[in-house]
């Protein structure tokens, strides 16, 4: 649009006038960027990572070995009701889905569809963000994808093994 159109559209609207140090020209420089204040960001994701099958469990276990903030890692035992925490004991799904704001599901096959649905339902009810990684060749038409699809706000297909680590790192899990 041209400057002229703009004036025409909002003839009466006051427009902000660039004001010294508070103007974009002053503020958006490399020099000014150095004054962005520095303080530790809270790592409040409380991410839960859930392996949906044996191969996924291998991937999740090896990611769990790295150093994380508050992330916790699980595999499925009793579909829909109890999850096994990596390096710890079994936890009821309802507890797993408490005090968390992100659940990442990892699948390599289409197993445990009921568990996926149970996790998805709780996540919807409690406003928990869901992500899914389908680590499988031919993932585009796999059952793993179709089971996860209704329940994962964002899906990576096909995902590579290290995508889990990258996602957790980037989200400060």
């Amino acid at each position, binding site marked *: 649009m*041209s400057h002229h159109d703009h004036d025409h559209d909002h003839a009466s*609207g006051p427009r902000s006038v660039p004001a010294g140090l508070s103007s*974009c020209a002053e503020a958006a420089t490399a020099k000014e960027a150095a004054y962005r204040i520095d303080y530790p*960001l809270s790592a409040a994701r409380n991410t839960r990572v859930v392996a949906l099958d044996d191969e996924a469990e291998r991937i999740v276990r090896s990611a769990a070995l790295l150093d994380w903030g508050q992330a916790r890692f699980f595999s499925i035992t009793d579909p829909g009701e109890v999850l096994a925490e990596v390096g710890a004991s079994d936890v009821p799904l309802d507890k797993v889905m408490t005090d968390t704001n*992100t659940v990442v599901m990892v699948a390599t096959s289409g197993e445990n569809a009921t568990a996926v649905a149970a996790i998805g339902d709780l996540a919807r009810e409690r406003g928990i963000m869901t992500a899914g990684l389908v680590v499988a060749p031919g993932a585009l038409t796999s059952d793993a994808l179709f089971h996860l699809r209704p329940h994962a*706000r964002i*899906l990576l297909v096909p995902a590579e093994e290290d995508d889990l680590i990258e996602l957790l790192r980037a*989200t*400060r899990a």
Partner: protein
Amino acid sequence: MLRTDINELLAQAGPGTPMGDLFRRYWQPVLLAEELPENDCPPVRVKVLSERLIAFRDSEGRYGLMDEFCAHRGVSLWFGRNEEGGLRCPYHGWKYDVTGQAVEVPSELASSNFCANVKLKGYPMAKRGDVLFAYLGDPAAQPPLPEWEAYTVPDGQVFTSKRLQECNWLQALEGGIDSSHVTFLHGGNLESDPLFKGSKGNEYNKGDLKPFFEVVDYEGGLLIGARRNAEEGMYYWRVTPWVLPNFTMVPPRGDHPVHGHFWVPIDDENCWAYSFDYHPTRQLTEAEVAAMRAGKGVHSANDASYRPLANKDNDYLMDRESQKHGENYSGIEGIALQDSSLQESMGPLVDRTKERLVATDAGIIKARQKLYKAVKALQDGVEPTGNRAKDQKVRSVAIVLPADQSFVEGIGEAMVAEPAKPHTSV
């Protein structure tokens, strides 16, 4: 990948940097064809990938792109005289052809072969559609000319603009991949902009403000599918391709022309957005081209040096009334400036150690990872993708599919560009 690596490895594209080496495996847009409109026209300064170059078009219409500075004593050849098949430095008269080869050194004796040994570093540059593409890399690894559909359609079916963006290229690219901002930032433009309005797809957009995303890895880059509810049992998909390293396309709306961008590094703190609109099967209408020239759609209204008229010096003409009343969610007019104002506000090179990404940023996370892997692979001698015709003949798609169908399977051949094949759009 750690966040500090992103800025060190991916953001900087100057000579000798890892990302710079990767960029030098691709033909990149360096000028609009209109900047060298005729034979013997004035030469133009080009800064790309942190290299200062001069571009010119000689008496026979050949394009040259080479070191900006005269080999003799370093005068800028912007002052050069473009005449009789070469560019002549006005200081002492040294003259160069389009390859950068010196063809005359007047101070030397006519019989001397001195000038045979003087050559400015030069790069191949070629016109495709209304854009001049150049290749700045190793001649031995030079890929074939670009085959982007926008630049293979007949004349009159494409319009490209360029716009200066005063921040690092990666910030701009990430905006092109980040589909989750569209509902917010650009929400107001769907029905007001002549280049978007009136499509059926817009209704799905407005009917479902919380899309789901599927990020699909494919050889040339990523396909980012945004999925919204459509009629019972159906999903409306908008599929955005990202092709390595810096090409993104916007999914189409109705029969409107299709648009996309190249985010080309100028230096570490500036980039060019080359924004195109093309129609695969018909001429652009006069009204469409007029709207594009006026800065509608993905374009912007610019000054003669391609800097947007709304820029940081005038606070992007921020209109708090319009922000308050919702015509423009951010108070800035036009898609292009809505994006660039925010991306520039992060600073010329954003400090990514301070980011707080969320799961819906997985597309950005994955794209960084793919760039990182391509950079590393090239260091190990593995050539990247994205510079071959099969990666470039890609289309963005908007489509309604049954809920249980993979979008990649569902769009199938619709993703593949072919001459005169109608595009798939809703």
